[in-house]
């Protein structure tokens, strides 16, 4: 008890030094919490951007289809898969799609697009297609409807109600086919590749056009609990009705995204390590200074019977108090900054990674566990940093120290 009081008072013997040391520790805490929040919210945005826009959290497709998007590789009999999906209560929604690269032409221009045949109702629960409509209407199921990305619509110089000709070839016979559609809606997802490279028609129209019966190319899936998507022992990954089919979660479908997440994780770690090294150098330095100043005093206290372990504990306790005070103020500053950044976001400018566009202001969302975990690490690491000066202080030889000080 005496020791705790001693340590606490020692901190306030040199207020200026303690304030600066605490500033150092507290700033490190603030920075690491904010960096972690920013990275979390960016990766969250990125994963959501990928899984919620079009791709879904998992996909079922014919093996090899994703390599070249070869239309011949389709699931010819999706019925049994779909009944499995319907009965699986881990699955929130799914959407079957026909995907064929085609030529699209208006009376003014022509271009290549990826043509999606989608089930209007199922698609609206699975992807952002319906909410991305900025003009006109979403698909209703009638034959001649077509939804275009905003940029491709601009390129073709068409608006709602204008005529569009799709040119492609039938999947099994490779006969050239042409069909007339009318633009019923225009969508804007954000990333350029999506808005300039996609066109959507009804699933039944696509199946008839390409003459593939009930066949589909892809079934995109969303889970009730999105965290599950990448665990390999889900039923849908294991029980596929045929070995020509594949089912994969988004991490396996998007290796680039995985690499990106890995890199951001690594960079937080590096940042954390640098901050820790800088802060602990400061802490070691400051504790050493306070020990030097008190060499005489420590020597006397040792001479009258304090054990070396007692001296070491005293120094460690001082480190602990410094860390606790810093965390206290660090948390207050973080909360204030957090409230400000939550409302205003952090403005870095427009970014686009892995086909996901980030808003100009990245929202910074703080969570409770950040306020528990990081202060805990900071306290722990400050204590580790204090070990060296503590050992040094414990080893002071009273006779020498008293002489030196005189």
């Amino acid at each position, binding site marked *: 008890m005496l020791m705790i009081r001693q340590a606490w008072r020692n901190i306030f013997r040199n207020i200026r030094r303690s304030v600066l040391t605490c500033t150092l520790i507290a700033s490190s805490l603030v920075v690491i919490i904010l960096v972690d929040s920013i990275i979390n919210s960016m990766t969250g945005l990125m994963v959501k951007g990928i899984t919620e826009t079009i791709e879904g959290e998992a996909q079922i497709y014919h093996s090899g289809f994703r390599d070249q998007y070869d239309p011949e590789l389709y699931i010819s009999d999706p019925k049994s898969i779909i009944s499995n999906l319907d009965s699986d209560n881990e699955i929130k929604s799914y959407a079957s799609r026909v995907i064929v690269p085609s030529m699209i032409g208006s009376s003014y221009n022509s271009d290549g697009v990826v043509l999606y045949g989608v089930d209007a109702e199922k698609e609206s629960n699975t992807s952002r297609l319906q909410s991305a409509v900025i003009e006109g209407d979403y698909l209703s199921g009638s034959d001649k409807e077509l939804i275009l990305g905003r940029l491709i619509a601009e390129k073709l110089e068409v608006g709602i109600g204008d005529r569009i000709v799709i040119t492609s070839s039938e999947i099994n016979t490779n006969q050239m086919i042409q069909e007339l559609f009318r633009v019923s809606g225009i969508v804007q997802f954000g990333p350029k590749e999506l808005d300039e490279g996609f066109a959507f028609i009804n699933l039944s129209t696509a199946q008839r056009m390409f003459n593939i019966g009930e066949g589909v190319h892809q079934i995109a899936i969303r889970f009730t609990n999105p965290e599950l998507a990448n665990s390999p022992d889900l039923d849908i990954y294991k029980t596929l009705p045929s070995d020509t089919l594949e089912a994969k979660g988004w991490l396996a479908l998007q*290796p680039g995204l995985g690499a990106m997440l890995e890199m951001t994780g690594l960079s937080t770690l590096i940042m954390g390590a640098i901050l820790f090294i800088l802060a602990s150098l400061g802490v070691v330095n400051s504790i050493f200074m306070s020990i030097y100043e008190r060499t005489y005093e420590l020597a006397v206290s040792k001479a009258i019977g304090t054990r070396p372990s007692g001296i070491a504990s005293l120094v460690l306790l001082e480190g602990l108090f410094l860390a606790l005070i810093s965390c206290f103020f660090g948390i207050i500053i973080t909360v204030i900054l957090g409230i400000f950044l939550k409302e205003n976001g952090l403005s870095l400018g427009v970014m686009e990674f892995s086909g996901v566009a980030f808003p100009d202001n990245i929202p910074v969302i703080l969570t409770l566990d950040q306020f528990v975990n990081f202060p805990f690490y900071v306290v722990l690491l400050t204590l580790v940093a204090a070990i060296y000066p503590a050992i040094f202080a414990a080893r002071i030889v009273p006779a020498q120290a008293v002489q030196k000080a005189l």
Partner: protein
Amino acid sequence: MLILRMAFRNLFRQYRRTILTGLSIGGGYIVFVLSVSLVEGSYGNVIDIFTKDSVGHIQIHRKSYREKPKTYLTIDNRKELEELFYKESQIISFTPRVLSMALAYGKEKSTPVKVLGIDPNLEADVTRIKEKIFTGDYFDSTPNADGYYKAMIGSSIAESLKINIGDELILIGQGAEGSIANDIFIVSSIVGNENSFDKMTVYLPLVASQSFLSLSDEVHQYALLVNKPKRNLEIAAELQETLSNLDVAPWQRIETTFYQTMQADRKGNNYTLILIVFLVFVGVLNTILMSVLERTKEFGVIRAIGCRPSKLILLINLETIFLTFLSISISLIIVIPMIYWFANTGLLLSEPIDMGGVMFQHMRGEFSLNVFLKPMIIVFITSFLVSLPPGFRAARMTPKNAMDFN
């Protein structure tokens, strides 16, 4: 001179403190240099790849072609333009291109493709196309005995149409006047791999593409390389003035999303660096302040025997500058080999990251004077600034108060 010697000796009075402070200055400097070098080097590398792979440093189009690419929006005063390019010493090479979309047919299958008409000789001076040939020979502009021109195709086209060198390739597209364009070509080589940007591109000799699209000697695009890539914005602006009826765009305006993402990433990086420098110098300020405080009595004596306050400030400034100089010198020994390794080998990420449409896979460092000098100047200036407040504090005290200080 005396002051210099005093400052230098003072550094070694408390060598443990000097080492710890030096470590944090040196560590901060190393982080700073690494970060600047990696950012400049990695982006420099990726910019070099895509500008020399396809984009070029500057592109010239007919006005409004980039927003609405239509076949009839061509550049027709080619002779005049090319004479200007030859005369302009800042332009090292240029290449004319014809761009279009078409449906490609192999033996059985079809797929939409990008058609790129190039001058075989000029193109090789601007891009690495010749080195990218995977199999077969680089083509020329002469038709074969049957009057068919050669075509080079991207690897994904070869794979999805199942065609190889020597096979026929049929292209169907839309000509300049809206007529249907179709022609037969003979595949002469396969370009790149499945990760290349041109995996779905058909390269045609310029003359063949012009006759395919019923164009006379017109082109859609000129891509230029300039002698000073870092000055391409200014060169583009100069060219724009002479060519007021055309659209001259530097790559920054062609790859807008990538450019914005890069700028945002740099901004984020700068924030991080500012924070690190701040933390380093909170620690440094702490140390200097302590060392001044310790010597209060001593300073009082020096003042009493006639030292001017300004000399005291100078002394403390010099101590900090010496310390910074020593730390940076030692850090340089460590950091130069690191940067050298990053510049020559670098880190290859396991999967490329898609950054606003540009693939990013190689972390490279830049090895240049600037990389070492810029952080050095900033660290020196900051350490000078940080040493001012303790200096003023020492200078302001009256000798009597200082000698009474306890």
